[in-house]
């Protein structure tokens, strides 16, 4: 009788992504290889990172139930220092940087002269003349060009800092158990340095999941120590590393937009009509016309005064349980008025959520009778479903524990 042979587990685990020219490992790579059972890797700005570790669904629930580690080392990090730093940053982004105090973090978008968004990210303020800009897309060339005439120093710190997104309801308790004293005082969007393993660990109460959570920033040489300390302190508090796919589910529930998914870098679009203004992406609150000049101000003011925005960006709840990936949106089931940019079945809300770009006046003046055309795979038989959709506010998921200070322990 023939016996089937199962490969030993260690062999499965030894499968590694190929790191070659253009594929860099992050400082956490050795631990990721160890934990990544699915061996499903993806690329992020030239770095190999896991899409998943063991199960996307279980990883997702760890975000909403316990604590999760997500490697954000590939995120682009730029230091902006010098006497003109504040003036420079205020010209760079449409929001008022003066209002960001040292020790605080702020979400920001920035535009080109046409008022089209280049990217979004976060601004960390360390002191009067000292900022860090974090973004998904590379901005060095744009920063350097923008800095002409300003007395500032711009430094690409991407490879000098290892970072983890540490998210979930038990994250505070784990940091506390690790002995990070004073972390309970951090309010949302605060950042502070704490001693750790003979170096400084920067903790910011920020994240991409819409839940309680932190982002942890450390020198690359201490990255593995940080990972190990978190995993040890979290062993009894449902801790798990997560990949990009689970994070994306939480990201949509939180209603966050993502470059290259919900909008494109305006300098990287071939068709000029693909650029999007802040007003077209529901980011009106980012634009401060009262603070003085900033890049894109003239075009944005013209758009605002002329009410000439072409699109609006909305959150949708859609009937049924099939996520509306890449779907077209219709008015009265007939007129095509836009498309879905991000979609997810929300396991926590038990709701079919999406974000969509609609052609005005739809979504603004006309909000009723919206439909989404979804293609559904029923065991290789494809059905076309017209599902009713309703415009709702974002974030879709917005738990009080996200804001509570000091945070709860679970």
């Amino acid at each position, binding site marked *: 009788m023939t016996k089937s042979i199962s490969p030993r587990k260690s062999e499965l685990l030894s499968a590694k992504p190929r790191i070659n020219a253009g594929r860099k490992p992050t400082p956490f790579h050795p631990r990721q290889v160890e934990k990544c059972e699915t061996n499903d890797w993806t690329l992020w*700005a030239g770095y190999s990172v896991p899409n998943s570790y063991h199960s996307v669904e279980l990883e997702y629930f760890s975000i909403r139930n316990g604590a999760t580690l997500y490697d954000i080392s590939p995120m682009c990090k730029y230091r902006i220092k010098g006497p003109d730093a504040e003036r420079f940053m205020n010209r760079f982004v449409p929001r008022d940087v003066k209002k960001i105090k040292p020790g605080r973090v702020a979400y920001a978008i920035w535009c080109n002269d046409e008022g089209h968004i280049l990217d979004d990210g976060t601004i960390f303020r360390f002191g009067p003349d000292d900022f860090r800009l974090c973004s998904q897309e590379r901005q060095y*060339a744009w920063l350097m060009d923008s800095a002409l005439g300003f007395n500032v120093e711009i430094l690409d710190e991407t490879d000098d800092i290892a970072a983890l997104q540490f998210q979930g309801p038990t994250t505070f308790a784990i940091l506390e158990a690790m002995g990070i004293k004073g972390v309970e005082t951090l309010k949302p969007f605060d950042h502070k340095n704490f001693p750790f393993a003979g170096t400084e660990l920067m903790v910011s109460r920020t994240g991409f999941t819409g839940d309680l959570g932190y982002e942890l920033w450390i020198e690359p040489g201490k990255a593995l120590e940080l990972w190990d300390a978190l995993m040890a302190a979290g062993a009894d508090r449902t801790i798990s590393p997560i990949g990009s796919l689970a994070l994306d589910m939480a990201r949509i529930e939180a209603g966050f937009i993502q470059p290259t998914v919900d909008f494109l870098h305006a*300098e*990287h679009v071939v068709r*000029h009509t693909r650029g999007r203004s802040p007003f077209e992406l529901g980011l009106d609150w980012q634009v401060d016309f009262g603070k003085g000049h900033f890049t894109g101000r003239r075009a944005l003011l013209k758009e605002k005064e002329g009410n000439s925005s072409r699109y609006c960006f909305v959150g949708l709840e859609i009937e049924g349980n099939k996520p509306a990936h890449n779907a077209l949106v219709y008015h009265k089931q007939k007129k095509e008025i836009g498309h879905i940019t991000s979609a997810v079945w929300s396991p926590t809300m038990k709701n079919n959520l999406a974000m969509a770009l609609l052609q005005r006046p739809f979504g603004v003046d006309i909000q009723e009778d919206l439909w989404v055309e979804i293609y559904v795979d029923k065991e290789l038989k494809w059905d076309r479903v017209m599902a009713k959709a309703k415009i709702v506010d974002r974030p879709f998921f917005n738990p009080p524990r996200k804001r509570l200070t000091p945070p709860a322990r679970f």
Partner: protein
Amino acid sequence: MNQTRYDAIIIGAGHNGLTTACFMAKAGLKVLVLEKNDYLGGAAVSLELHPGWTYSNCSYVCSLLRPEIVRDLDLPKYGLQVIPYSGGGVFMQNGDHLCNYTDHDAHRLELARHSKKDSEAYDRYSTDLMRQCRFIKPLLMRMAPDPTSFKPRDLAELAYLGKRFHDFSEAQMAETLRFWTMSVAEFLDEYFESDVIKAYYAGSGIIGTALGPMSPGTAYVLLHHYMGEVDGNIGAWGFARGGMGSISKAMAACFEDHGGEIRSGCGVDKVLVKNGRTIGVVLKNGDDYYANTVISNADVKHTFLDIVERNDLPEDFVRQVERFKIRGSSGKLNIALDGMPEFPQVPKDSPIFNGDMHFTDSIERMERGYDDWKNGTWSKDPYLDMLLPTRIDPTMAPPGKHYMTVFVQYAPYHLANNESWDGPNRDAFAQTVFNQISEYSPNFKDMILHYECRTPLDIEREAGITEGNIFQGELTFDQLLFNRPVPGYAQYRSPIKGLYMCGSSTHPGGGVMGAPGANAAREVLRDLGARQTVRGY
């Protein structure tokens, strides 16, 4: 007198002549192709000059050949395979190099070794070029509209052009007009700061053109090299498996399959004209062939200054043809190598060896090379476009051996002091090239088993192109669209009824593209009221 009458005679079996021939034979017409050489292909030709080695004697890489043509003529069925290549780069004088990677991140990291800022500017550069390609590409397979004509078709085509232009934003319209007229050096300055990165991309702006990288108009030449594609990858280049001659061979097979007739070794002496219309041709050997339609694949100068009697042409037209710029600017070496030459300054497994290699690491050096051309001599520090097709194509040399093609810019057609290319100058030209390669490859010269050196004069003699200009006329804005080759005659027709042009002197210009040939066939078939076999309008 030959008894057979043909519906059409095509002068020259270059790839455009063959393209026209195929579409006409497909329409059921009786077509004869006359070729002066004993072999076919014109400048898309592969010959075995050293036993075991197949050279791509003139053109050497393929990108522009329109996929519509490949598909409609079923060329893969007749043996054509185009294989993309990647890699390439620049060997630098300081011992470093720049390598071109296919993978976006790998390429970014490589550019960042030379300039971090340029590595990001590259994305903006490729987006902007892509936008220009998208604008120009649909015009390739269309007749260029005559802006002075009120014919419905010209008006419709002009409206189409206007509509496409209108799709641009105001800033992009301005950018487009600047782009079509500026120099490649200025264009690249808007994106890059690194000399070697600029030099690498500037190469496409000068290849085949008697202009320097700082001459206005060269930015468009760069675009001309970018608008090709391999399987939808815009800007990608490939090898025709078995050499560029495979393209001509496949076309010839298609043509004969549709009942066409090819006669090689038949140089045409004169086009016969009677009462202002074409009636046939007479060969150099005195034979004559008759057809009411004659289509010349030869360049516009050779056609109207050599094989049509001046007597039969309007004087204005002849003078404009005389002024058409078709200047010799480049030469070509084909080399059989005993093995893979060593280039110690680059790792052995670098993809640089699989693509187009260069030794010019600044635009300044390129421009100095052009200065030599202006002085009536070949560049003493030439810009080389060097490839080893055998890195990819297993059919062109015995295993372990290599075939190297080296395109050399600049080389004038007329040497100073009335010197001749024949004799020591040709050898000295080849030695200049060998010496440059040897600076980077110590064992290169020992590897040479055989070589073929082609100066502009040799290209003119063999391929028949005036001054050996690879584009049958420069691709400057004054010679494009409705001005190519001559205003009023940009739609493949000539002043003589029944006489047409189908070579690269016509819209949209040079490169192994096939578009002039296909567009010409479309116009001829329209005039004859025959079945239309060419897509388009």
